């Protein structure tokens, strides 16, 4: 529990320690008292009850003492929360975070684009977050940080990770079907390792043995598999398996029509997902990837889908 893995965690864990100590003190103390009273004053042991209507001194004491304690807990909760609410330092590294159903993507100042959050240890990191569709919430338990991201309103968060390692990153606000799969990891590197990773921009250009394999990596990067399977299973959207070249029924502007899945249809579906929705699937779930995806990446995805027979 007490990990001290971020600049925020230490204060939060101290607040936890204080509050949990008070909780356990009262829980154990009062439970013991309850059990002792039941045991000592049971009918067989104490056949005649003594009538006591109350005691004003006691009432006063058990109002004032808990009042002081809760104000103390309030204070520690508040002071250790203030760093979460503060503005990031000027030298913080800014990373753009995009949350959508049901994946995370991170974009760095030099244009690097990943589905895993790589950060250097010991350096302030500012997250500039937006949600494309519904409310999501960025949650890194190890760092004691959580921030809802409301569509239409950018949200910020910042922190300093203390030690290199790999940590979970969850979506904490329920966001639909694949909510529990909307997770990734934070990879905290030493600044040397991080710099080496950061300047290596070749990784953003996919290098792979074949265009199909490259396409597969792009599909993974954008999290397409959250909704589109590659083995024929129906999830939220149609499976990629064997769809290329097939005749399918789509709904265009409320009317059914039959089309063949070709390169143009796939391109159009990535850029304008609601235009021709395959019959049996719902409109409005997928949001356009225009401005995020390059023409070259679309072509590689098409090659990949063609290969899934």
């Amino acid at each position, binding site marked *: 529990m007490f990990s001290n893995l971020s600049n925020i965690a230490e204060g939060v864990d101290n607040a936890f320690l204080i509050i949990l100590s008070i909780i356990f003190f009262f829980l154990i103390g009062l439970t013991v008292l309850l059990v002792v009273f039941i045991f000592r004053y049971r*009918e067989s042991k104490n056949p005649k*009850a003594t009538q006591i209507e*109350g005691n004003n001194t006691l009432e006063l004491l058990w109002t004032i003492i808990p009042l002081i304690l809760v104000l103390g807990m309030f204070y520690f*909760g508040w002071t250790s929360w203030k760093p979460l609410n503060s503005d990031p330092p000027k030298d913080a590294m800014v990373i753009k975070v995009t949350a959508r159903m049901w994946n995370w993507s991170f974009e760095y100042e030099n244009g690097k684009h990943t589905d895993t959050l790589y950060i250097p240890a010991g350096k302030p990191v500012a997250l500039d977050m937006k949600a494309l569709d519904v409310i999501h919430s960025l*949650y890194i*338990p190890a760092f*004691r940080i959580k921030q809802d991201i409301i569509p239409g309103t950018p949200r910020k968060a910042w922190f300093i990770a203390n030690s290199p390692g790999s940590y*979970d990153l*969850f979506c904490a606000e329920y966001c639909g079907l694949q909510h529990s799969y909307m997770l990734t990891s934070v990879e905290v590197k030493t600044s040397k390792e991080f710099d080496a990773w950061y300047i290596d921009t070749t990784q953003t250009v996919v290098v792979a043995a074949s265009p199909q394999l490259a396409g597969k990596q792009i599909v993974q990067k954008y999290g397409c598999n959250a909704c589109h399977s590659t083995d024929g299973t129906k999830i939220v959207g149609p499976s990629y398996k064997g769809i290329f070249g097939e005749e399918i029924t789509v709904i265009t502007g409320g009317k059914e029509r039959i089309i063949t899945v070709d390169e143009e249809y796939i391109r159009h579906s990535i850029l304008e997902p609601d235009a021709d929705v395959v019959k049996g699937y719902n409109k409005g779930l997928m949001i356009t990837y225009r401005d995020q995806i390059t023409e070259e990446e679309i072509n590689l995805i098409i090659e990949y889908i063609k290969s899934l027979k």
Partner: protein
Amino acid sequence: MSESKQPSYLEYQGKYKGLFGWIFSVDHKRIGLLYMYSIMTFFIVGATLGLLMKLELIAPGKTIMDAQTYNGLFTLHGITMIFLIVIPGIPAILGNFFLPIMIGAKDVAFPRLNLLSWWIYIIGAVIALSSQFMGSGPPDTGWTFYAPYSFKTTTNMLPAVLGAFTLGFSSILTGLNFIVTMHRMRAPGMNWMKMPLFPWTLYGTAWIQLLATPIVGITLLMVVAERTLHVGFFDPALGGDPVLYQHLFWIYSHPAVYVMILPAMGVISEILPTFARKTIFGYKAIVASTLAIAFVGYFVWGHHMFTAGMSGTAQFAFSFLTFLVAIPSAIKVFNWISTLYKGSIHLAVPFYWAASFIFVFMIGGLSGLVLGALSTNVHVHDTAFVVAHFHFIVFGGVGFAFMAGIHYWFPKIYGRMYDESWALTGWVVFFLGFLALYSPMFYLGMKGMPRRYFDYLPEYHGPNIFSSLGAVVMIFGLALIIINLIRSARKGEKATANPWNGTTLEWTIESPPILENFEEIPTVTEPPYHYK
């Protein structure tokens, strides 16, 4: 009235016979039981849904259902449990039955309105549940209907929202009825400071029902207008603000927590003096804390939104007020435990339920301190910790108090006694299962497992197994309890008028009560828990 004795309310034959004699009865006791039978039916459904969810979570990955089914289940579980069971719960069942009797009245102030409230409740329930069977699939938004997901989902959400809206009227009318009853119909000599504590908590509750419920009503109508007419209130795509929805939703739904828990506290305040053979410790302090909770409870809703991005000032104020509302609850616990001091405690099933209520309520309440403080809230917000916390309060608190109350008043309601060894076994099994089910969730939440998760990482597996097994044990205990009560209502031994040696007015009349409760309206001279 003629000289001959009135029949009991169970035997009385009015204008209608059989089933119609119940569903068109304006007798507060029959209406109380109508509520009990309908709420218990829904409760068995809700509990089964909960058990299925726990079975799904016994292992990572898909276990017995797919993700869409799971999301539909926790939505239906939440809607049923909150809107159909716990909010009406104790006031509608035990309140309807015992409020008039405990203040020495023949019925509530508006008996017809009371029957109407039950009918509205049934209509609301049917509308809400119709969402499961009609349209494009069961809603999957969670019981909170958060925007904008609730606008994006293609599932059948409108009936659920309209159902909740309708149920609100039932709640408002019951609140109104109880307030007028207590102001106008107390027996001669029963001034406010001689009124028993269960009616007092119903009084605090009734004001919340009356004043807070309209807010959620309007909010839900706004959702309907937004979904059907595309007026932009909450959906950013239409220019609305999702955070506004959260504010409006919790302005009602937080006070609603006190609608649930206050009457539960009232039941416990009745049972403890009776079984300790001793007057309640600090009557005035308990009354004052009841009213304080009902009042301060209106101003703490923001603690449901500490990660939503409110202003720093709002966060500060809501956290501060949340800590203040903890004080009156603490005062009650201190007074309850002090009531046992130097008592002569008769150990029986209702008392065991009441004592275990104090224990689980302390866990629920004290864990709330973690959620009231800002920084610790942010860490465990929307995790299994919160689920554990509110189940300890809403199920532990309200559920245990209801069990205590039904085992306490059962002989009065049916004029028969239940089998005590079955009831005791049921309590032990249920209590242990309950602790095993919800305690691990505190740990899971501290470790960071988010709530509403169909699947989880392998690191969370151990505590989830424990929790799921706890659910099985608890449901087994529940079955024992329910079977015992149903059997005993028909075949139990005849009960006397005052089996527990209670001092409040309901123990001065016959078991089961006659149609109009009292042969003659009593005059009250003593405080409610007067033992010599």
